[in-house]
């Protein structure tokens, strides 16, 4: 099924995106695994910000690329497709879009031929009382209101004008619940996708975490989404802290997350990728066998996906 969109920056047919398969979000524990287990992964997702040192707005050069990390990225990109998972666009933020950052993503897009880009439905930059922008230290969610939808849509359109690629928005994990919101999260995501032409990066672990923490039905949540907008799925493990389930990327996926993965994969006709995320500090626990097992489980869902 072709889902086409007409943002100002051009048309990206989400349904025409390449079928990537099963991949993993890059971290420093992975180089050995990627080389010794080539059959386990089809692509790698990278957070570009991890590969450079940001010297700050206005500095020239602003970004120092890190040699050892770049060697790995170049090796990966020469062997398999790479997709960009950004963390600095602050899509729900009110501070001006960081144009230098966007320009760096444009440059990297040309260098590494990212199959698509994504970022999160939250803000990470905020203006202080004195007007200086700074990082929030945590991805902060916003209420699902029309005003916020207008804000996020405008920023996505600006990003899409700059980067000639499909763009996906990732659903939040949120530990707080704003009262009196104008839309549910699925309604917000559906409207955002329809308006901007972006796809969805559905993090089913985030859905699971929110459903546990806020007491809703995770399957009903995903069923309220437009499945044909789901291009990529994130799966991960988590941990509990004082009764709250955290998206700590702590090793293996809980079974309910894998059940959600199966449920969505069987219904999302434009699914192009399933990405396993884990934090490198959990690799000694997960080990190569455990990582292979998670990717095999993802591949089973991929094999049964809707087409």
């Amino acid at each position: 099924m072709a889902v086409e969109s007409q943002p100002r920056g051009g048309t990206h047919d989400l349904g025409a995106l390449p079928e990537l398969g099963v991949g993993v979000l890059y971290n420093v524990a992975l180089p050995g695994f990627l080389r010794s287990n080539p059959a386990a992964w089809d692509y790698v997702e990278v957070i570009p910000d991890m590969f450079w040192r940001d010297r700050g707005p206005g500095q020239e050069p602003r970004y120092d690329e890190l040699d050892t990390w770049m060697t790995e990225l170049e090796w990966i990109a020469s062997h398999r497709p790479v997709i960009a998972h950004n963390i600095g666009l602050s899509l729900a933020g009110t501070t001006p879009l960081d144009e230098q950052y966007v320009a760096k993503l444009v440059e990297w897009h040309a260098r590494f031929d990212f199959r698509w880009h994504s970022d999160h439905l939250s803000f990470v930059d905020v203006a202080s009382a004195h007007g200086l922008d700074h990082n929030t230290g945590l991805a902060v969610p916003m209420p699902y209101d029309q005003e916020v939808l207008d804000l996020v849509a405008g920023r996505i359109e600006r990003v899409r004008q700059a980067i000639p690629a499909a763009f996906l928005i990732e659903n939040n994990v949120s530990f707080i619940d704003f009262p009196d919101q104008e839309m549910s999260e699925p309604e917000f995501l559906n409207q955002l996708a329809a308006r901007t032409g972006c796809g969805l990066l559905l993090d089913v672990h985030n859905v699971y975490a929110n459903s546990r923490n806020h007491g809703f039905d995770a399957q009903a949540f995903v069923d309220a989404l437009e499945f044909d907008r789901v291009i990529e799925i994130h799966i991960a493990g988590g941990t509990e802290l004082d009764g709250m389930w955290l998206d700590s990327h702590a090793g293996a996926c809980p079974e309910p997350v894998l059940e959600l993965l199966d449920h969505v994969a069987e219904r999302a006709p434009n699914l192009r990728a399933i990405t396993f995320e884990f934090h490198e500090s959990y690799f000694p626990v997960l080990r190569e066998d455990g990582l292979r097992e998670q990717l095999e489980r993802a591949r089973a869902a991929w094999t049964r996906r809707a087409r």
Partner: protein
Amino acid sequence: MDAPRPVTLAAFQRALSDLVASPVLVRRVWDEPDSALAGYELSARERARLEAVAHQPGMETSCALYRMNRVTPLYTYLRLTCQALEGSLREELDHFWELQPAHAQFEREVRHFETYLRSRVRAGALPALIEEVLDLELAVNALRDGHAGSEPSPVADGALSLREDARVVRISREPLALLSALDAERPLDELAVGEHYVLVMSGDDGLEVLPIADELGEPLLAIARGDGDSVPAETVELLVETGLVVD
């Protein structure tokens, strides 16, 4: 409820991120919401939302995650310095976080904490030993992977300099005893005070951290600081011969 005005959205985000960054502000919103939120230009709905989320268990979780995110770069690159702060670590972190907003890049967070600690030592609020451990750790970082490390002092053209892959640090405690106490989290005030020097050098077998004699440490430190002219000529000759100093 009134519709939120666009101008207030930025204030709402500032208030929300301030809450996430400050359990103290969260408690103020519990106790005295009017004064706690007085500095933010908010619509009635935004204000009601902030008061509501401040009471939710998830706000406590958000505050904890904010602090975990901020302490991670410091423990990653300045673990010994954090340990050297002993019982004052938490208070110093709170003070630092109050003064210095977060930065997404680990290196920038480490740099900001370095600047903060040096200013606290200069003000007499922290002992000089903290700056010495900091210097040692930054030297190790510089030569281990280049992240969050100390830069060599600028040296005039033609002046003596330390070789690029070496750093020298002065420490007022016996270095091995200090490292052992930090590792075992033993009190540092039990260590005898003296004058010691450590040479940090990267070689074929990895990083070496070597206690060195005063006679070697003093001139090396002077040269590293760009003050090679104060070192006697015969000492310079010897140091150049060892390869530690570049003429």
